[in-house]
């Protein structure tokens, strides 16, 4: 058909396209109504927290709002020598208001993130606040503590002037913007987050691998055993699913601790000496063991659902054509299970990368992950914007994994059951 053919009309003379759209519009509207509660729900519980987190991670208005006059008088300062008298005066005025509102402690915390040593000199400044006399604020301030005469501290204050900053993201990868505005790594002995990221990825990768190795035969058995046995096995796979995560982790603690069941057994059979019991908990080993067990069903189920659809006659065909059992498995069966492997691996990896409770309980120092650090900053240091920044970095990591997977295998090849 050429594009110039005239428009097809319905018997009533309305163009067919218009008529079709009209009919479809009603159906589409109905369909939309049906999903709109879910859409609304998703918006509230999913999209909005992420947007909020994104905002939180770059939001630095707290300090900006605490020292409005200081920052406006600093605008002309070149940062090379001590700021002008005007700045010292504004700072005095801003700080006085903060003390009246009893918010000067927060400022001290925030500035101390920026540069160590702020807390004590601000405390001292606060105590001397009432002794200030009109005029010559610069001299009076420097008299309180010699650090006030150090230009680095004023630069640190100036760095907090912008309302939005990406400094938390830099901190998340052990970097910061130094006095000259350059992005550099923190000192060797203070780098913690990079190590944690690498450890998180490593543990997630190995847990995924372990899950795959263990789940593959289980899923195969599930898919091929006669019904009455496979049902029983299925219950065994699902039973942990129906038990609380906390309970499961706690039972691993009972099993793995040095006076625990596993060690007792190994001592009893003489595999290890009583005074040389294995340390399987409060380290990475504990995290590996417990996470693998807990995430196993997420690998078994997608694999099972794929294997269930593979006709046994394909394997028979492979054998009848002369393939040894191994070749038949490798060339026929295995390639057909790849969608399940992909789905299971993606699922386990993504879950593992953000795992929290289990590493928290059995991980100790060497087995905790990035999510534990996020929780730490939310609960103890109360640096929520840093926690948000790390949370978003984790999220974008997950999205990156998803993207790579889509490029390599294709997301439509996934089968979750």
């Amino acid at each position, binding site marked *: 058909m050429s594009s110039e053919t005239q428009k097809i009309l319905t018997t009533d003379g309305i163009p067919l396209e218009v008529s079709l759209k009209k009919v479809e519009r009603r159906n589409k509207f109905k369909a939309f109504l049906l999903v709109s509660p879910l859409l609304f729900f998703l918006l509230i519980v999913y999209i909005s927290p992420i947007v909020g987190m994104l905002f939180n991670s770059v939001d630095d208005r707290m300090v900006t709002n605490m020292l409005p006059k200081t920052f406006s008088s600093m605008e002309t300062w070149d940062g090379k020598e001590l700021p002008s008298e005007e700045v010292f005066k504004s700072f005095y005025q801003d700080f006085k208001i903060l003390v009246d509102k009893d918010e000067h402690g927060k400022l001290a915390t925030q500035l101390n993130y920026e540069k160590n040593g702020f807390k004590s000199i601000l405390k001292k400044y606060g105590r001397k606040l009432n002794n200030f006399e009109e005029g010559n604020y610069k001299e009076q301030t420097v008299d309180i503590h010699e650090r006030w005469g150090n230009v680095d501290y004023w630069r640190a204050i100036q760095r907090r002037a912008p309302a939005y900053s990406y400094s938390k993201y830099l901190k998340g990868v052990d970097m910061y913007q130094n006095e000259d505005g350059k992005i550099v790594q923190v000192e060797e002995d203070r780098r913690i987050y990079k190590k944690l990221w690498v450890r998180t990825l490593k543990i997630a990768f190995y847990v995924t691998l372990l899950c795959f190795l263990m789940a593959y035969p289980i899923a195969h058995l599930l898919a091929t055993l006669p019904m009455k046995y496979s049902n029983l096995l299925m219950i065994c796979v699902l039973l942990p699913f129906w038990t609380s995560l906390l309970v499961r982790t706690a039972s691993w603690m009972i099993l793995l601790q040095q006076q625990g069941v596993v060690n007792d057994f190994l001592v009893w059979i003489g595999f290890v000496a009583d005074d040389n019991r294995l340390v399987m908990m409060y380290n990475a080993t504990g995290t590996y063991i417990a996470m693998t067990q807990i995430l196993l069903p997420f690998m078994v189920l997608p694999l099972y659902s794929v294997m269930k659809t593979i006709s046994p006659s*394909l394997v028979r065909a492979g054998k*009848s054509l*002369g393939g040894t059992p191994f070749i038949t498995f490798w060339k026929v069966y295995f390639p057909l299970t790849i969608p399940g492997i992909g789905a299971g691996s993606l699922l386990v990896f993504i879950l593992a990368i953000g795992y929290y409770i289990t590493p928290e309980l059995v991980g100790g120092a060497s087995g905790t992950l990035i999510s534990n650090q996020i929780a730490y900053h939310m609960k103890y240091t109360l640096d929520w914007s840093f926690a948000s920044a790390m949370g978003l970095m984790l999220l974008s990591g997950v999205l990156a994994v998803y993207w790579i997977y889509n490029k390599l295998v294709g997301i439509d090849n996934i089968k979750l059951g």
Partner: protein
Amino acid sequence: MTSSKSFVKFDKVDKSYDGKVLVVKDLNLDIDEGEFITMLGPSGSGKTTCLMMLAGFETPTNGEIYLDSKPISRIPPHKRGIGMVFQNYALFPHLTVYENLAFPLKVRKLSKGDIDKKVDKALSMVSLTGFEKRMPNQLSGGQQQRVAVARSLVFDPQLVLMDEPLGALDKNLRESMQYEIKHIHENIGVTVVYVTHDQSEALTMSSRIAVFNDGKVQQLSSPDKLYEEPVNSFVAEFIGENNTFTGQVIDISGGKCKVKLDTGAEILSNPIRVKTKGEKTKVSLRPERAIIDPEEKMDNKHKGKIEEVIYHGDHARVRLNLLGNKEFILKVPNSSARMDIKPGNEINVGWNSHDARALDPKSI
């Protein structure tokens, strides 16, 4: 061996899955080289089990199977070198047509050139040249079927097993594939063991048919013999259409027997499975062997009332009430001559006693 020269031999084979029921009972079957033999039977009759034992996916519970005079029960399937076409084709969905066909050749470590040559030859045999790069799901059912056949033959096996290969195709395609498979068999002379429950398929294709029921071979003979001379009432009823009368033998003499039917009427028939007076029997008569307005020399002549006329294009099936059998079927060629064949009319029907085979009283 000396005892038999047959290519495939089932020797007293029993098979049970659960230790309680025998699926295959004391099976003895000899298949000659180059034969096209069909195992025909209703579902659950043990025919597929036999095929699976031959392929090596099931082991006989008792007895032995010989291939080329060698016992094969302990040889795993991949070493038997038997080609097989499966019910649902079992093409590898992740491989192209070429790779599917190359699979048996690659595992046999043939060179790339030889593989190409053999794949080409096999594809041209099923007229699918040019389809090498297609994936199985891009092919129609009939094309998939041909690929499956080509794959089972590409490594030149001496024996090919086919497990209801045409079951999933529509009627027209099935018929054309039947001829195609038959021609391939004739051209390359491979031995084929074919399993089906479709009797017309079996009659069309086979050199011999083994009719299975209840785990046993009921009759093993050529298609025409099977149809014309069924040895028992199961075979008679399973193959083709059949009119039956049940009754009791009251006289046997001169190669004929007189059977008194349950309704009291008496017919003459051919004693196949009855030997003495007083035996119960079931008389089987093919519809096309009974004719309207019989000639004088026919020794069975009876009157029947037309119950129903079913139009079939080239012929009509007339259902009669004859000697108390309300399901007596008669085939009448489509011609304008007989205008009196209408429900309610009475007509004369006759047949030769030789065609009425008095068999065992057992029914399906």
